């Protein structure tokens, strides 16, 4: 009887501890994924780039460090040159194959964007002229 009782207590405790560890692991993974999600980065970089363009005058070249974005894009199979696109006065940042995030700017300028040399983790934003 005593042996059985001890066995039951041990199994219950082990299950309880395993479930607790499982629960904590899922929680930590959820928090990590939320903080490093493509949606968050896409929004942050698109707004950042739009505000940079709004503040800039023609004949300006800006280098924006996008190390986190490059890592995420590589993981999701997105080419570096396809990350930032400018269509008219709308910036689109795409870090996954789910469409990307758009944000518009009001400065009526002609902008070109392209990634820096592969060894650098920058994106180059070039303000050429007023439209």
């Amino acid at each position, binding site marked *: 009887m005593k042996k059985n009782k001890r066995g039951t207590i041990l199994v219950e405790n082990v299950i309880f501890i395993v479930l607790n560890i499982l629960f904590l692991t899922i929680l930590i993974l959820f928090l990590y994924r939320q903080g490093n999600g493509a949606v968050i980065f896409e929004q942050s970089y698109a707004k950042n780039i739009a505000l940079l363009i709004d503040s800039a005058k023609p004949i300006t070249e800006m280098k924006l460090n996008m190390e986190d974005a490059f890592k995420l894009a590589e993981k999701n199979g997105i080419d570096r040159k396809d990350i930032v696109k400018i269509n008219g006065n709308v910036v689109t940042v795409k870090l996954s194959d789910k469409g990307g995030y758009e944000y518009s700017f009001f400065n*009526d300028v002609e902008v070109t964007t392209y990634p820096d040399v592969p060894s650098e983790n920058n994106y180059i934003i070039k303000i050429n002229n007023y439209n």
Partner: protein
Amino acid sequence: MGIINNKRGDKILSVYWFAVLLIIAGGIFGMVYVFYGTPYDVREIEARVLTNQIADCISYTGRINSNLILNGAVVENNNFLEQCHLTFDSTEWEEEQFYFYVEMYRLQDLDKSFLEIEEGNLNLAVSCSVQENKEQENLATCLKDSFYSLDDANNQYVIKILTAVRKAEKNVKI
């Protein structure tokens, strides 16, 4: 009897602990979802940048743009948006998301403006008057600023600028 009671107590305790864990997990999931689901609100910065652009266009290095005021007189037929290299149309939005209102006063007559320029979505002007009483995130973010400048004939002016940026759907959780 005592042993049976203890066993029941243990089971109840385990269930209670799991219930507590589930409640905590629910709370954390909810908080994280709300935190990361709320967009970054950059409208105040955008309104500040727009105000600076307009101010630079009206008066660069302290002198009023001669396309606006020449020898103390207003130059007619201004296409202000084009002159200041601003574009409020966008494929992203059906309606314009920006508005600004500029008033220019002569320093000797601050009661009556002698030049007013208004561009963008006029409906946003209403948001600014509502915002004055109580801040509403869903409405446009408004910013007021003023500065002093001189024209080519050294006449003195006070320029007041009101800017409004809407873009609520992209900056506030609605």
